[in-house]
Structure formats: C-alpha cells, structure tokens
C-alpha cells in the first residue's frame, strides 16, 4: 500500500516541476553560468557578440545543432531581442548592439533544444553575485 501511495504521489507531483536558477557562477569560458531547465548555460559577451554555451547537468558540452535560442538583452535601459544561431560545438552566437557596455547588462535567453520545450535562463553580467 505504501509503495503504491508513493508512486501515486510521485506521479501527481511530477507534473508541475519548475527550474530554479542557481546564483550566477563563472563558467569555463569566462562568462556567467546558470541553470537553464535540465541544462547549464553560460553566456559570454565579447564586443557586440553574444555567445551562449550549453552543457548538460554534469557540465559536459552538448551538441546544439538544430537548437534555437533567443536572447532578450537589457543594456543601457534599452531592451533588444536577438536570435542566436548554432555556431559549432556547444555554442550559439548572435549579434547585439551593446556599445561596449558589459556591466549591469541583464540577459534572458530562451533555448529550444531539438525536440524539446523552450527553457529560460537569466544572466546578470558584471555582477559578482548576490
């Protein structure tokens, strides 16, 4: 009886599971890293380039061929939306108008891995953490 109750509970409980982001950390590419659904995502801003690196929960790079990503960037009080395209290995690349300001830039990415639902991630650039 107990086992069946547990199974029942587990099934009912599994439906509304939501990702909760970790505090910002620094990833292997020197950018802010956070959780994006079941993945880890790292965002690097370089000039006007926006690069998103995707790894799995164990930080192994994931092939992003066929994946899609959108980034909403808040810089200098202006919001802009850009599309990130797969750029080899586990990176997705895009161009944004950042005018060199990388501090206190906030980025939200929506990553759609092939055949998966979109997952969101939020990055605060230039902040050591909170």
């Amino acid at each position: 009886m107990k086992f069946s109750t547990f199974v029942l509970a587990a099934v009912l409980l599994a439906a509304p599971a939501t990702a909760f982001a970790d505090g910002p950390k620094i990833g292997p590419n020197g950018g802010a890293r956070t959780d994006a659904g079941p993945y880890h995502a790292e965002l690097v801003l370089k000039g006007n380039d926006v690069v998103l690196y995707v790894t799995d929960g164990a930080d192994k790079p994931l092939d992003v061929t066929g994946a899609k990503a959108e980034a909403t960037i808040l810089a200098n009080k202006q919001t802009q939306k850009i599309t990130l395209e797969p750029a080899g290995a586990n990176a997705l690349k895009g161009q944004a108008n950042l005018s060199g300001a990388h501090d206190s830039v906030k980025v939200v990415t929506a990553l759609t891995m092939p055949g998966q639902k979109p997952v969101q991630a939020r990055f605060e650039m230039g902040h050591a953490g909170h």
Partner: protein
Amino acid sequence: MTIRRLFAAAAVAASVAAPVAFPALAHEGHAHGGEEPKPVIAMAAPTLETSSSDLELVAVVQGKHLLVYLDRFATNEPVNGAAVEVTADGEAVTASPVPGENGVYRLEAGWLSKPGAHDLTVSITAADASDLLIGTLEIPATAAVASVTGNGNGVADVLGRVRQDSGLLLGAAMVFLLGVLTTVALTQRGRSRTVAGAALIGLGLLLASGAAFAHGDEDHSQDNKDKAPAAAVAPTAATTAAMATTGVSESPRRLPDGSLYVPKPSQRLLSVRTTVAKPQEAAQTVQLIGQIVADPNGGGHVQATQTGRIEPGDKGLPYVGQRVAAGQILAYIAPAVTSVERGGLQQQIASVEQEIVIAQSRVERLRKLVGSVPQRDIDEAEATLKGLQRQRAALSPALTTKEALKAPISGVVTANNVKVGQVVEGRDQVLFEIVDPSRLMVEAVAFDPRVANSVRGATATTADGVTLTLEHLGHSLALRQQAIPLLFQINTPPQGLSVGQPVRIVAQIHGTMSGIVLPRQSVVRGPNGQPLVWEHESAQRFVARPVRTQPVDGNTVLVSAGIEAEARIVTDGAGLLNQVR
C-alpha cells in the same frame, strides 16, 4: 511504519495541492545540495514569484488579467512608475499601473486563458532600476475554464456547476466524506484501516476523475494528453473551493512549519519593509538605569535673604510650568519688622528730625550774617543739615521698602512653594525652583567600576520611547550607596522631558562585538517569549528566526546569532506579522 504512513499521506496531500501551488521544486537533471525543502503553499490563483538582486516580482492571475506586484528586493518598497512589459508565448504585452495602488500593474493577455506552463520574461524599466526577470506561470485547467466564464480562480464556476447538477452535488458530498474517512484511516494504526484507506483513496480518485470528465460542452481537444493533470486538478478545485469560501486563501496565514504566507496586498497593507542583514562591528554596551537631572548651571533656586511677607510681583506669583526670563521679578518680600524694632526706628527718626529743625534754624541764622561770620561756619552748618536730611531719608523707607526676588536664570518654574501673604524665613527656605529645559543632564548609577571608567558614549530611552543622545561628562569618585554616579549631558534635549524622569541608558564601553545591526522594532517576542526576527524568505513567505540580541543603543540591537548575512529581515511591520495566526 507509522511515520512512513504519515509521510505517504502528506505526500498525497502535497501532490494534490501542487498544481496550484507555487512550484518550489528543484529541477530535474541534477541534484542540488543544501536546498531546504520549502513548504507547499496552496494559493487560490496561479501565482508566479521571481526576483533579482534589485527587484522582486509577484504575478497573480486574476480572471483574464495578470496582476503584477513589483517591489524592491532589499527593502520591499513598492516600485511605482515603472514600465512593465510581459512576454509570454511570443506575445509582448505592456502592463499599465493600477490607479490608486502602489507598485501594482495589470495586463490582459490571451495566453492567460490557456492551461499549461508559460515561460514569462518581464522587462522592467523604472527611473532608477531596469531589469529582466523570468519565471514560469502554471495555469491549471480549471482556472483557464473559469476565466472563460469570467471568474478569477474557477471557484464560483465549479460551485455553480455543482449547484446546478444534483448528481454532481451528491458526488461532491461523497468526495468530501471520502476525504474525511481517508484522513481518519490514514492517521489510525492497524492493517485493516490502512487497507481501507487505500481503497478509499482509489475510490476517491475514480470519483474525482469521473467528475472532471463529466463537464458538459467544453473543448475536449486536449483531453487525451491532459487526463492525468485533470484527475489531479479536480480534487484541487474542491480544496480551492473550500479555501475560498472560508476566505483563508487570500489572507495572511501561518503555515504548518511555523512560517508565514503573506500575500503581496497584505504586505502592502501592513507596509512591511525589510533590510538586508550585513555583519558589522559595534561597540560593546552595558545597560544602566538613570534619571534626568537639571544642569547645575541650568537650574536655579530663589530664596529670601530676610524674613518677610510674600507679595506678588507685577504679574502675580509665577506658577509651575511658567517660562521666566533671567532677572524677571517673581515676587517681593515685605520685611517683617517687630514692634520693638519699629519703635526704635521711629525714635531714631524723631531724634533726627529734631536735629534737622535745629540745624535748619542755625543755617538760616548764619546766612543772614554773611560777611560778619566766617564762611567756614556757614559751610559746616549746611553740611550738618544735609547729612541729617540724608539720615532721615535712609531711615524712613526701612519700614516700607520691599525686597525684589528675581529669577536667576531663564527657564521654566518647576516648583513654587509660596502663597501670597506667606511669611518666609530668610535663607533656609527655597521659594522657587527654575530649570532650563535646554540644559538637562542624565545621572546614572553603575555598580561596576570598570564600566564607569570605560564609558565612551551612551543613549537613553525614556518610558515613552524618546531617544536621547548622551555625552559622558564624568563620574563621581565617591560612592553613593555602593554605586558610582555617572553624569551625562543630553545633546539637544527634546521637548517634554522632566527632572526626575527615569530613563534606560545603553552605554558604549571599550571593546567591540560583531554581528548584524538591526533596528529595535525588528526584534519581536515569540509565543514562548524568545526574541525573534522575521526573515523575508521568498516573495510571499516569512520565516521566524530566533535570535540572540544585545542592545547597541536606544534604537538598534546587535544580533549575534540566529540570522545569516544577506538575509532580508523585516524592520517595519514585524510586530504585525508576529500576530498572524
């Protein structure tokens, strides 16, 4: 065994509540260490809570509208005048501020009536802060159905349907009965009971899913994939209905683990404010008891120098509380002259007057003989006359002249010990006391000589909560009743202090201690009398943290144990939160 069974019951209850609850669950994929399991909070309306280091956002679905409550993360102050844009399902909608409310924004969007999980991106641009926030809003099927009929949480819709359909009414009654029986069965010992419990759960779920699929003419296109959630949602609707009818859901309440669920509107009403805990160094303190005394240079006594009768001054006798200026005449003393003294004086006056008459006639006679008598004799006679006249002038007012009693300093009359006509003795009686309210002092007693030697600064609090900043003047070298009197000067004394008023003094002594400095009103008393603070743990949840405190000064305390750095601690409204049951 029993514990496992209880846990199983709890798990079932939790999972049933989960679809409408705030989804505070660790995500799948990999494990996160050290995350405390948060209690599942059942909310009537689908709610999204999210925050960044600057802002905290709570979004609540209300019918076809989404209400967005926006506050500062650190202080919990509502953010007004922000431009809020919510993007979900590829649709960007700008929220407009709700008139008459602080930091509340409302928007209308089509996706709000679609059940399922929606990923939201909220872009906020305020005057001093701009931010991007994300979160997932889970809209249960019933809420979506209800929103079609225009109701916020689907409760009235469900209730209406139940009322219209007698079969459903019967079903609802049975589900309720089953629930009661199940609870009883699960909380009792014994194998037969548990078997009965399991059977009842099964029956209940069957009934519930039956009820969920029994609704009339809705769109069934999603039924296939939504079967499991629908079965889960049906009992949820029943719990929601129960909550809404009792009005529990939208009011602050205490959760089973002792923490508080306080919805944003209630937080606004209680004007809950927080501060971020920062470890600090503060001077060590000791508490002393003292009282307010008058500065010797700012207090005056009025005494008579001779025995006499009190006569009022030009404006009457001063009353207690009257403000007087230095030099102002408060009263006169008419000297008391005994009859013997009076007789002697009158005798003197008579003899002087007699001599004056003689001297006068002598002067007149000599003046007629000018030229034949030496000028020296005339001058002598005139001088004698003048001297006698002065003697007479000095003697006569001795019977009538009054002594004026003047205020020695400017200040307020604090004691008046005389009445008109009262005869006072000279010197030993204090007639009036005057205190300068701008020059008051605090006198404290310390029993520890080390404290007396190391006091650096202090603050004092009166019984009515007025805080005084004190400056240490010194301490006596002579013990008074085995205690050392310490004297403090009050910097800019406020109105309404009185001499003799007791005060509580927090004196800073040498040495420092480290901890988190909080305003005094943050610390409240728990039911067992233990000091505690309320931590703003998540947007709508507050947790009591028992603390060890030590006063820093009259207004602040130092928390040396009980809370972590960076925790958000309630400052304003802690007392009100403490009363939530």
